[in-house]
């Protein structure tokens, strides 16, 4: 991190900054983007694709909430509604939540944070984007031709022998998409192992890198299992085999085991990178070393390992043996401990910090609150006797949305706001962005908190119509969803706006430390002008040379 001196003199006037060579102006034209091997450009490509799928998934969510405004199913036919929630789940889980932070922020930041010129396998990285889109097109094809109605969980024998929708095309889309995830995860592991800058030891790595590393391990170990499981479903459906079909001697619960062996760790694929982002944001906006750095780092690894041992908690009422259920219950509680430890460490980091309330920090603080509630309700549903009542009800729906939306999306948006000046070299409007953060927080809670109550009252999930006494809470939830929708639209608008009209950000608008802030914004194609040499940990704010850069800080707006 001593490279500041070697970088060209930082200028803040728009004109000179714009002319400075960077990855955005290194080449022009569609070909220069579609054939790029620059991890930063691939991150931008991913940003566009992932945002598109997020928009599609959100549209489904909005239609679901619209239908649930009234107890009678009066907006759609039940078939249509079933397709809506299935496609919402498929698109959001496989095409947004899993790739969002690793493929966009991870792709952009991993080489920058470890002082490398690029990822280890740039061509593989580009291939992963194409494969992702190929999988997406298969899935979109299925949506356009009538969708799929099995739920994103594809439970057998419904999916294999009763559903007449496009199960195979969707499964194939997810299968293909799996390769893209694997390519990204594999690339990250190799890059983090082999391409760190001189002096950058494991315990000098930013916590985002630790989290990304743990995520990549889960990706590499888990994704092939969902691939083979969905392949078996597709083969069984095509050739009418009996692998999971009880009528032919197969075992439907075996499918659930194989499915959740991946799909539960997949939750940690979604949340771990968000935890990594969270650590970066807290450190940067409290200007302080993360308390218990090693504890937080190892907590990521512990979550990755334990996450593979808890899949059975999805089958507590599916006819699993009660002794197996007991073991899965206690392991599920253990996995909550590293998460709790992280929350405490982040909170403790604020103590004696120098806290600034820029937009990314608002997301970071919101993340802690929502993730805490999501995590605590997670331990509740791991409690056996309790889970019997709330399993497959809106309580579970609310719980995992607190983790996936309250956790992952808050982390993703926070990260995007934090590194946007790094990505684009531009600032976004302060007031609007803070308003958006507030809308997201309020809208989110209004949408999903009532669902906890609905779930405890007993409203099952995936219901197209429901008993009338549940209506008030459903109306609240739908109202919240519309606020949430506005909260998501705003950043899309002002990010695009800022690319053309935004104020120039300078190299380091937050006065943050970290290798990624030691180069220019936006960075040049090969990231650094000279290979950085690292002599200390990632969050050292109490140093002489750091003080100099504080004066660069820009207040938004």
């Amino acid at each position: 991190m001593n490279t500041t001196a070697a970088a060209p003199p930082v200028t803040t006037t728009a004109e000179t900054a714009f002319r400075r060579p960077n990855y955005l102006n290194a080449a022009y034209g569609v070909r220069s983007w579609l054939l790029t091997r620059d991890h930063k450009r691939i991150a931008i490509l991913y940003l566009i694709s992932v945002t598109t799928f997020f928009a599609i998934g959100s549209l489904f969510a909005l239609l679901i909430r619209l239908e649930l405004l009234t107890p009678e199913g009066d907006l759609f036919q039940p078939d249509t509604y079933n397709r809506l929630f299935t496609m919402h789940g498929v698109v959001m889980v496989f095409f947004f939540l899993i790739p969002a932070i690793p493929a966009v922020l991870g792709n952009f930041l991993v080489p920058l944070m470890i002082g490398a010129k690029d990822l280890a396998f740039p061509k593989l990285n580009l291939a992963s984007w194409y494969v992702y889109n190929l999988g997406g097109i298969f899935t979109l094809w299925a949506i356009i031709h009538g969708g799929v109605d099995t739920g994103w969980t594809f439970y057998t024998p419904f999916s294999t022998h009763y559903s007449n929708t496009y199960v195979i095309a969707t499964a194939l889309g997810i299968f293909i998409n799996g390769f893209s995830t694997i390519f990204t995860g594999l690339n990250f592991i190799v890059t983090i192992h082999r391409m760190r800058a001189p002096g950058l030891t494991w315990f000098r790595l930013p916590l985002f890198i630790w989290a990304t590393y743990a995520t990549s391990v889960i990706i590499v170990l888990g994704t092939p299992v969902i691939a083979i499981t969905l392949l078996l479903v597709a083969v069984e459906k095509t050739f009418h085999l009996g692998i999971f079909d009880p009528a032919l001697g197969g075992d439907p619960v075996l499918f659930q085991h194989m499915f959740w062996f991946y799909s539960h760790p997949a939750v940690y694929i979604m949340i771990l990178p968000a935890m990594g982002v969270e650590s970066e944001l807290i450190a940067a906006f409290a200007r302080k070393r993360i308390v218990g750095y090693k504890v937080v780092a190892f907590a990521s690894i512990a979550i990755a390992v334990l996450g593979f041992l808890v899949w059975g908690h999805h089958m507590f009422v599916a006819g699993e043996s009660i002794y197996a259920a007991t073991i899965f219950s206690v392991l599920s509680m253990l996995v909550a401990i590293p998460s709790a430890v992280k929350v405490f460490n982040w909170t403790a980091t604020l103590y004696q910090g120098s806290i600034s309330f820029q937009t990314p920090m608002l997301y970071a603080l919101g993340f802690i609150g929502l993730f805490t509630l999501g995590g605590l309700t997670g331990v509740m549903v791991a409690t056996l006797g309790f889970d019997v009542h709330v399993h497959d009800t809106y309580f579970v729906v609310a719980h995992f949305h607190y983790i996936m939306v309250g956790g992952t999306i808050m982390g993703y948006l926070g990260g995007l706001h934090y590194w946007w000046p790094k990505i684009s070299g531009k600032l976004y409007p302060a007031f609007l962005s803070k308003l958006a953060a507030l809308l997201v927080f309020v809208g989110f809670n209004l949408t999903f908190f009532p669902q906890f109550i609905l779930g405890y009252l007993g409203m099952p999930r995936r219901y197209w119509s429901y008993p009338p006494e549940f209506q008030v809470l459903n109306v609240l939830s739908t109202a919240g969803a519309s606020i949430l929708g506005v909260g998501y639209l705003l950043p899309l608008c002002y990010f695009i706006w800022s690319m053309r009209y935004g104020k120039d950000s300078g190299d380091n608008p937050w006065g943050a430390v970290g290798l990624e802030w030691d180069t220019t914004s936006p960075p040049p194609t090969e990231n650094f002008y000279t290979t950085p040499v690292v002599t200390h940990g990632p969050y050292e704010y109490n140093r002489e040379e750091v003080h100099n850069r504080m004066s660069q800080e820009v207040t938004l707006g």
Partner: protein
Amino acid sequence: MRSSFPLFPDSASTHAGTVDAIFIIWSLVSIFFTALIAGLIVYFMARYRRRHSEEVGANEEVSVWLEIAWSVIPLAICLAMFVWGTRSFFDLYRPPADAVEYTAIGRQWMWKIQHPEGQREIDTLHVPVGQSIKMKLASEDVIHSFYIPAFRIKQDAVPGRYTSIWFRASKPGVYHLFCAEYCGAEHSRMIGSVIVMEPRDYQNWLAGGSAGKSMVASGGDLFQSLACVTCHRAGATGRLARGPALEGVFGSPVKLVDGRTVIADDNYVRESILNPTAKVVAGWDPVMPTFQGQVTEEQLSQLIAYVRSLGPIGSAPAGGTGGTPAGTTTADSPSAATTPQTAGPGAPQ
């Protein structure tokens, strides 16, 4: 009687109180920790807000003891809740000895319910207050889930095997019956009512309902019409004895050809009817044909009810002794299946 805007569900079973207690305690714990974190954040935000742009945070590390404390305290709370939750879970799968067995068979998209007395209902379940009832569940097509929120119980009905759960209703009233596992187009209409009645009202209802034969009687008819009786005949000897007599078998351990011993529970009898040679009783030839496809799920339940009703004959011992974990059972106290055990072979000895 239902409020139009309830915030807490009806509690109408003896089990509901435990779940509610877990829920309330957990909620208090959650509120405490969320408030603690939120309070600390707000306090730190105010106390340590940045005052000038060059200010940096102090590089304080927390003490090791603090790290240990905030790891161990949540762990202790979790483990305590784990023990509590697991105990209440185990109770759900260990019906008391006096439990009466009802059957619910799920199919797209209805619940078909049979009372032990032979009464049949669709999407409605009448039960008396205070009676322990074991619901035996099966499915004819996809996976369904039998869910009564007011009783705080839920159990999947999985095709190809039996699962079960029990409850004791504690408050008369009309409650929801839901299917909780997504099962296709009309999933949200696979709902019904549970009507909890005073025992006297329940008896009146039984008397006034369509007079069907009892489960046992229907099973006995089937036992004749399917010619089970020709082989499984009590007291037969010599050439006539082609299969073991079934009197007193249910609920007791059975020694198999391959040396294993299994408990003759619902799933065992079911398997023996559909897949007779999977677990052949020691001393007999595997000559029984399969009845797969010849009996419906409902008839299977009736046959099993009949087999269970066959008490010991003459001097034949009543089966299991105190050593069996399932508990000894008689015709009146079917409590063999302690777990929602899978039906597959390979069950432990």
